[in-house]
């Protein structure tokens, strides 16, 4: 506890809130197991919150949001590995909102300092700090933490369930448990006696679960470390996977939402025209928005356009230029953070050449394929809510308040997510549905956002500005001094959660201050703008802009130094963090990097360490009849033990495409306080014809488990920008690239 207390006295964002909570509750509370939220029915064995066995079979609970990253498959594989069940024969569900499902890894990642430098002892502190997540009800899928969180806890859950079933069999057969084995969902006794888990469930339910079971050696693994078929694949290939928008309940009504495009309040509305339209039943005031309730979604969407609302004005400047000018004023104030300050950046080393560059990146929408939606039913004082979400306990808390019921009377049903990317860590879509359900007591209602509503009411990736200064001497980088201004996405999110953020914002400067470069004079400062424009976590969060700033600027320094940009990075990193250098060596080999490219071809490299995983990226662009084609990409990552290589590869390529889409075409601009982009025709992404060929190498030298879902994004944008410089001789310093370059569309 003294160690946590010491950390608690150093204020830093989230970490402090978590630790204060933990200290207040004390070690006992933090260490005590959370109650098992699964209440067994007669004949059903629930040895722990992750395994349910009854007459119908085995159900594994993977309480992390399946938004495409494959988390349910790998979590289920961890349980199945020890439980000895066939992954293809079990059911995998999200399970309820419950404290038992808290994320043990997320809080640890918010410790101060650079993660790549953490010692084993510090990783231990992170584990302890992680348990504080339980106190805060942090059942959150985010921060690329699911593997570090689940492994080997889920193996232990499977092992405990297995031994409990064996104990039930041992008692029935009157022999010692040690004489029993398990295979394919059965306990095997001497003489080839087989007892199905299903048939042991009723007896197992009467036992105290067997714990303290030794886990199997990785050499015995059948699932882990291998690419296994995803448990959700057949459903997703046949249209039978249920997303939030697919929930259908008897007597359900369909509603469309419209909220203030300037993200402010609503003075009132005139719904008289809408109410005369066919199929329209009512228009409900939701405070700063209204919902049109009809017999189908399309009729509701049409009628919503006929309502005449009286919106309040925005609480931030009305257009993009004014917003960015306001953001730039943050540089005039004092820094929010100086998370890195090595050597002396105030003095230009004698004989060194100074290099400066400014960069700008825009606001970005998440643009999940499934627009925001939620379905709710308030009946007899109890609220049921169905939606894809990344934080069920937050959904539960905030919907309880919105519907006017106790938290215990809210049941959250988490469906598949038609994309998350951070957007569904928020819960506004669920709260609106809960408010609507309150006005329709007894009637289930699905509240859907049009694509336009989704695009214009996001919690955006904030725009960000960088002022970079550096110096080179004798072919080497001797100084890097970066200043970054943006909004604090994390501070806004914590405020929406109901917490009080304190301390500097580490997330806003991640991807810049915490890179394993051995630059002797090295400083990164963050400047937080007080703009009130709604922002949130977008795949890789601060890394998404800082990866661009840092890695474009390192490239400019290499150019000024006359050094090869890949070799220079490798030389600066090699002695600091070997797994990081290993990723650079890998992409050099994979791409056949020579540092030279023929006319009509450009290559760029970038590196970023994020979420515990170093990733190096090389991108090749080609001049194709005057248009720039992103032809190839090579990615090397090192997330440590690769629990499922196919899923890691898919995440790396997907994250790269997500980042390249933003780099090429992504921007949200504002006019009269409202987002101007409406739909995929003006917020487009890479498609099959302009998506590069991609090759991934999954390295496993990292001694700690890193993330997979986000780390592929930060390096994508600078690698592309650096390749375009190599091709054209023009330095891209502003995104999206479509404004300044002729990209293949």
């Amino acid at each position: 506890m003294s160690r946590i207390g010491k950390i608690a006295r150093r204020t830093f964002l989230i970490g402090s809130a978590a630790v204060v909570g933990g200290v207040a509750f004390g070690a006992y509370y933090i260490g005590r197991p959370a109650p098992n939220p699964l209440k067994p029915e007669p004949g059903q064995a629930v040895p722990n919150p992750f395994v349910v066995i009854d007459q119908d079979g085995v159900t594994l609970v993977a309480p992390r949001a399946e938004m495409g990253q494959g988390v349910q498959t790998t979590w289920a594989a961890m349980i199945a590995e020890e439980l000895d069940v066939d992954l293809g024969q079990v059911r995998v569900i999200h399970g309820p909102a419950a404290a038992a499902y808290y994320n043990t890894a997320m809080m640890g990642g918010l410790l101060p300092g650079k993660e790549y430098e953490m010692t084993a002892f510090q990783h231990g502190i992170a584990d302890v700090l992680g348990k504080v997540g339980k106190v805060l009800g942090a059942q959150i899928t985010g921060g690329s933490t699911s593997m570090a969180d689940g492994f080997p806890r889920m193996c232990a859950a499977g092992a405990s369930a297995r031994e409990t079933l064996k104990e039930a069999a041992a008692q029935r057969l009157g022999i010692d448990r040690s004489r029993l084995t398990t295979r394919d969902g059965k306990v095997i006794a001497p003489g080839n006696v087989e007892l199905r888990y299903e048939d042991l469930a009723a007896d197992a339910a009467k036992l105290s679960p067997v714990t303290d079971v030794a886990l199997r050696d990785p050499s015995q693994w059948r699932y882990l470390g291998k690419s296994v078929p995803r448990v959700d694949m057949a459903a997703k290939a046949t249209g039978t996977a249920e997303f939030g928008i697919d929930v259908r309940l008897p007597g359900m009504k369909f509603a469309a939402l419209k909220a203030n495009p300037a993200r402010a309040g609503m003075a009132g509305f005139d719904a008289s025209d809408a109410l005369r339209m066919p199929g329209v039943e009512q228009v409900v005031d939701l405070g700063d928005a209204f919902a049109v309730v009809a017999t189908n979604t399309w009729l509701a969407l049409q009628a919503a356009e006929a309502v005449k609302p009286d919106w309040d004005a925005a609480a931030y400047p009305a257009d993009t230029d004014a917003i960015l000018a306001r953001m730039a004023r943050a540089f005039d104030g004092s820094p929010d953070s100086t998370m890195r300050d090595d050597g002396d950046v105030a003095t230009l080393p004698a004989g060194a050449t100074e290099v400066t560059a400014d960069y700008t990146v825009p606001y970005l929408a998440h643009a999940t394929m499934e627009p925001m939606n939620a379905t709710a039913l308030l009946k007899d004082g109890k609220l049921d809510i169905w939606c894809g979400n990344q934080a069920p306990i937050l959904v539960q808390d905030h919907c309880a308040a919105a519907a006017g019921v106790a938290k215990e009377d809210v049941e959250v049903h988490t469906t598949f997510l038609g994309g998350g990317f951070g957007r569904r860590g928020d819960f506004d879509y669920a709260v609106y549905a809960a408010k609507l359900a309150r006005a329709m007591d007894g009637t289930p209602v699905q509240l859907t956002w049009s694509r336009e509503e989704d695009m214009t009411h996001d919690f955006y990736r904030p725009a960000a500005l960088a002022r970079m200064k550096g110096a080179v001497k004798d072919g080497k980088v001797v100084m890097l001094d970066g200043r970054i201004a943006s909004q604090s996405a994390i501070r806004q999110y914590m405020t929406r959660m109901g917490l009080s953020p304190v301390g500097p914002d580490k997330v806003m400067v991640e991807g810049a201050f915490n890179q394993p470069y051995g630059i002797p004079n090295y400083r990164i400062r963050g400047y937080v703008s007080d703009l009130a424009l709604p922002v949130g976590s977008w795949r890789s969060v601060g890394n998404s802009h800082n990866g661009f700033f840092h890695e474009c600027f390192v490239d400019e320094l290499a150019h000024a130094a006359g050094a090869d940009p890949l070799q220079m990075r490798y030389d600066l990193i090699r002695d600091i963090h070997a797994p990081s250098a290993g990723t650079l060596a890998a992409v050099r080999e994979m791409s056949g990097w020579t540092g030279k490219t023929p006319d009509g071809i450009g290559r760029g490299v970038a590196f970023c360490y994020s979420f515990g995983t170093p990733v190096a990226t090389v991108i090749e662009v080609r001049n194709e009849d005057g248009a720039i084609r992103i032809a190839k990409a090579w990615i090397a990552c090192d997330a440590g033990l690769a629990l499922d290589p196919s899923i890691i590869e898919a995440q790396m390529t997907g994250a790269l495409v997500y980042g390249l889409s933003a780099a090429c075409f992504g921007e949200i601009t504002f006019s009269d306080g409202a987002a101007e982009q409406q739909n995929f025709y003006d917020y487009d992404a890479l498609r099959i014809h302009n998506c590069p060929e991609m090759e991934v190498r999954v390295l496993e030298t990292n001694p700690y488990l890193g993330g997979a879902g986000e780390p592929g994004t930060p390096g994508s944008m600078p690698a592309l920008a650096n390749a375009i410089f190599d091709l054209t001789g023009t330095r891209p310093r502003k995104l999206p690239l479509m404004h300044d370059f002729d990209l293949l569309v």
Partner: protein
Amino acid sequence: MSTTLTVNGTPHDIDLPGEVPLLWVLRDALGMTGTKYGCGVAACGACTVHVNGTAVRSCQMALADVDGPVTTIEGLGTPDAMAAIQAAWVDHQVAQCGYCQSGQIMQAAALLADNPAPSDDDIDMAMQGNLCRCGTYPRIRAAIHTAAAKMKEA
């Protein structure tokens, strides 16, 4: 006004205005939710179904304009009896979030019906209207080639 709509071989009487898009007839009136709403303006392809065997964006086709039988993802195959194209999707582990995949598969099925051995350029031409925010394009391409090869053998 009642309209008769044949979906996956089954006729349905639909009592909705003729301008309601086929997408919403399928999803909200018939409860067939495999076909997805993504954009409402034919910019993403998530709502792709077959009408008379041709791939169409169901968000842009009014109920009154549906002039033949409709096939949706549910009619292509089921988890226990998948069509070759769906089995190829599983072989290549294509889906991530999965939301766009019904539309991708319906578009790919129509491509293969027209062109049993599509080149990469053919695939680019046919599939570029189908957006995937998870970036599963390389596996989509591989799955189409595999399905083409399997269907040739059959």
